[in-house]
C-alpha cells in the first residue's frame, strides 16, 4: 500500500518574522524554517501505519520552493521511503496547493493520506480537507487516535469540549493533531541515508489562486510599560490610569 504524507516548510514559531519589501509575504532572511510541527505527527503516523501493516511505501510530498527539500529530507531521515517536491517559487493559496497535491496523490495511487491539521505559517487549516475534496476521498480532521483495520478506518477527533469517534473506509485523508503520537527523532543511519537519496522534482499541476494577498503587516508593537512605584500608595494612581488612559476598567 502507498501512503502519502504531505509536509510544509514553515518559519519556526520561535524566530522573529518580518514582512518582505513588497508587503505581501514573509521576508525569509534570518528566519529559521522547520518542518511544520503538526506534520511531524502526520509523518510519525504514516511510518507507524506502514510498520504495523508490515509492508508498503511512505511518500512525502511538498509544494513550494527548493528550500522545502530540507523538510522533505527530515521526513526521509525519520524513515519515509521517498520524497517529491512539487516545485513552485510563486505564492499558492490553499486551494491551489491542494489541487497540486491531489494530482500527485492520484498519480501515485495512494489511498491513505496524512496531513498536519494546519500549517503554522498561514494557519488556514484547510489544505487537507480541500485535497480530499479534489480527490473525492473521505476525510477525518483533527485526529488524536487512528486505527486501520483492513479498509476500515476508525478515528478519535477533537471537537469543542470533547471527543468524537468517527469511522469510514479507504481512501481517506487524515489531518493530525497533537496527542496522536510522539514523533520519533531521525536516526543517524536515517540522516545519512536521507542525505544520499534524491528528491524527485516535479512541475505541480497548474491551478489558479482564488485568494490574493493584498497586504501583510505586523501587529502594532506594544507600548513600553510604566512603573508607578512598588507599594500600596500608588494604587489610586494605577486605578486612575487604568480607567482614564488604558480605558480597561
Amino acid at each position: 500500500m502507498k501512503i502519502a504524507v504531505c509536509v510544509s516548510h514553515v518559519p519556526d514559531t520561535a524566530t522573529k518574522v518580518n514582512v518582505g519589501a513588497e508587503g505581501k509575504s514573509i521576508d525569509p532572511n534570518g528566519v529559521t524554517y522547520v518542518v511544520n510541527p503538526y506534520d511531524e505527527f502526520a509523518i510519525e503516523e504514516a511510518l507507524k501505519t506502514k510498520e504495523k501493516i508490515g509492508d508498503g511505501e511512505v511518500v512525502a510530498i511538498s509544494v513550494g520552493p527548493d528550500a522545502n527539500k530540507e523538510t522533505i529530507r527530515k521526513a526521509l531521515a525519520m524513515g519515509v521511503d521517498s520524497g517529491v517536491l512539487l516545485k513552485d517559487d510563486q505564492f499558492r493559496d490553499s486551494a491551489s496547493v491542494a489541487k497540486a497535491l491531489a494530482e500527485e496523490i492520484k498519480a501515485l495511487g495512494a489511498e491513505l493520506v496524512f496531513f498536519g491539521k494546519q500549517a503554522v505559517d498561514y494557519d488556514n487549516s484547510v489544505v487537507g480537507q480541500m485535497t480530499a475534496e479534489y480527490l473525492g476521498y473521505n476525510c477525518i480532521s483533527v485526529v488524536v487516535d487512528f486505527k486501520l483495520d483492513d479498509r476500515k478506518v476508525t478515528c478519535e477527533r477533537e471537537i469543542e469540549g470533547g471527543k468524537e469517534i468517527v469511522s469510514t473506509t479507504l481512501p481517506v485523508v487524515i489531518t493530525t493533531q497533537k496527542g496522536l503520537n510522539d514523533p520519533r527523532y531521525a536516526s543517524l543511519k536515517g540522516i545519512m541515508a536521507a542525505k544520499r537519496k534524491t528528491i524527485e522534482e516535479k512541475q505541480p499541476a497548474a491551478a489558479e489562486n482564488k485568494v490574493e494577498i493584498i497586504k501583510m503587516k505586523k501587529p502594532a508593537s506594544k507600548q513600553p510599560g510604566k512603573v508607578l512605584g512598588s507599594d500600596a500608595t500608588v494604587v489610586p494612581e494605577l486605578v486612575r490610569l487604568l480607567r482614564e488612559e488604558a480605558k480597561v476598567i
Partner: protein
Amino acid sequence: MEGNNEKIRERSLIPVLLSHHYMIIKNNPEEIQTYLVDAANYKGFCEEVVFPESENDIINIVKEANKTGKKITVAGNGTGLTGARVPEGGIVIATDKLNSIINIDCDNQKALVQPAVLLADFQSELKEKELFYPPDPTETNCFIGATIATNASGARTFKYGPTRNFVNKLNVILPTGEILSIERGKNFAEDNKLTLLTGTGSEIIVNVPKYKMPGTKHSAGYYVNPRMDAIDLFIGAEGTLGIITEVELKVLPLPQNVFSSVIFFSNEDDALSFISAVRNKSKDNPESIIDASALEYFDERALKFLIDDFPNIPAEAKAAVWLENEFEKKDEEILYNKWIELIEKFNGDIDNAWFAFDNVERKSFQDFRHAVSWKVSEYLVKNNLKKVGTDTAVPHEKFKEFYYSCKDLVENAGIDYIAYGHFGDSHLHLNMLPKSENEYSAAKELYADICRLSVSLGGTISAEHGIGKLKREYLLEMYGEKYIIEMAKVKKMLDPNSIMNIGNIFSEEYLK
C-alpha cells in the same frame, strides 16, 4: 510614593546613600525576599538591599561600609547552589542595574560587559553576530559577573574549560573601596607573592597560599599557583575579594555544524566505557575526527524523571549519554560513520538513539539536559524535601571505581537518589533525595563520605558550584586548617575590616 522612599532613606543604615537620591534602596521584607535565598534554598537576612547604578556608586557604598563596619553581600541572580549570595546581616549590593553589554568587538573576538548581563542574553546577542561564548552552566539565567565569581562551568567545559579561560580583563572594587583593573598576562606572582597596584596607586602584597589544587576540574577555594596570573585570584573567589564591575571576555566564532546526539545504553558499564573512549579520542588527540565538545551522562533514575516530558526515551534504557561534536561540513560523512562505529562498539542502542536533524532539535537535547536539573528542584519543592547533591570530580582513571562506590554507599543506605553529570570531566552530580529528617541526616553523612572518597582519590569536593556557606567544612577537610588560614590571610590583606561576602569559602572565625 516619594514620601515613602524618603522614609526608607531615613532609616537607612548607611548615611552616604542619602546623597544618592536616585539609588533604589529596599528594605520591605516582601520586596527583598528574593535576595535572602538562592537556588539551594539556603535562607538569610539583611537590613536592606541597595541597587547601585555605577562603579562610583559601588565605591561610595563600600567605602562607607568600611567606616561603619557594615557587612556587604554581593548578589547576582540567585541561581547559585551554595548559599554564597545569601546575606547573614548587613546590606546586600544587588548588581542588577549594571546590566549593559558595552561592546562586542567581532574583529578582535572580545566583548566588554557589565556584571549583571544575563548569560542567556549575552549568548543570543553573540549568536546574531555569528559569535559564541563557550561557558554554559546548565542554568543560563545567571549574571556574567556571578559566573566569574564562581568560575562557572558547563557541558562545554569538557572542550573549552571553565569561565576562567575566557576572562581577559576585570575591574574589581576591592573590599576597601579601591578599584583594581587587571588584565590577563600582565601581572604574575613571583615566589608565591602577588603585587597588586590599585587605581589610587597603592600597592597590596598578597602571599599566595601554598596548597596544591587537584588536577581535576575544580572550583573550591582560591585558585593558586606559585607563578599565577593575578586575575585568576579574583575568578572563583565567590565575591570575597571584591565586586566585579566590568569584564572583558574572549569570544569565538560560532561553530557552523554541530553533531548532537542522545544515546541510550542497556547497561551502565557500556555507557561509562563509551564515555572513556570518547574522552580519549577527543582529548590531546588532534588527529581524531571525534572531538566531543560536551559529554554528559544520565543514569536510569534520571531518565525515569524525564520520561513524562520526553516520551521518546526507550523504556528499557539503563543509561544515556548526550554529546555534541563541532565539525567541518566536508568531514560530515566520515564523522557520522565514526560515531556509528563507536556507538556500536559499546553496544549503544543505535536504532533508538536521538540525532538532532537541525538546530531546533539540538536545542531540545540541551533542554533535555537542563530539564534533569530543574526536575529535581521541582520534585523537591513539591514534596517538601531537601536535596543533598554532590559536585565532585576525580581523576579520569579513578572515575568508574568512584562512581560505583558512591552508588553502593547510597543504595546500601536505602536513600532515593538520581545520578547524572559532566562525566566527560569525571564530574558527578549524585543527588540524594531523602524522604525524612532521619534520611536527611544519613544523606549528609554520606555526602561527607563521598567528599572524603573523592579527595582520597586525588579529586575535589566541588568542581563547579563552589563552596559558599554550605560546603566550608568539606573544604576545611580537603585542604586542612593550615591552608584555610592561608586563604583567610589573603582575604585579610584585601579586606582588612572583614566586611565583604563574609562566610563564603571559610567561616568568619578565621578572619579574627
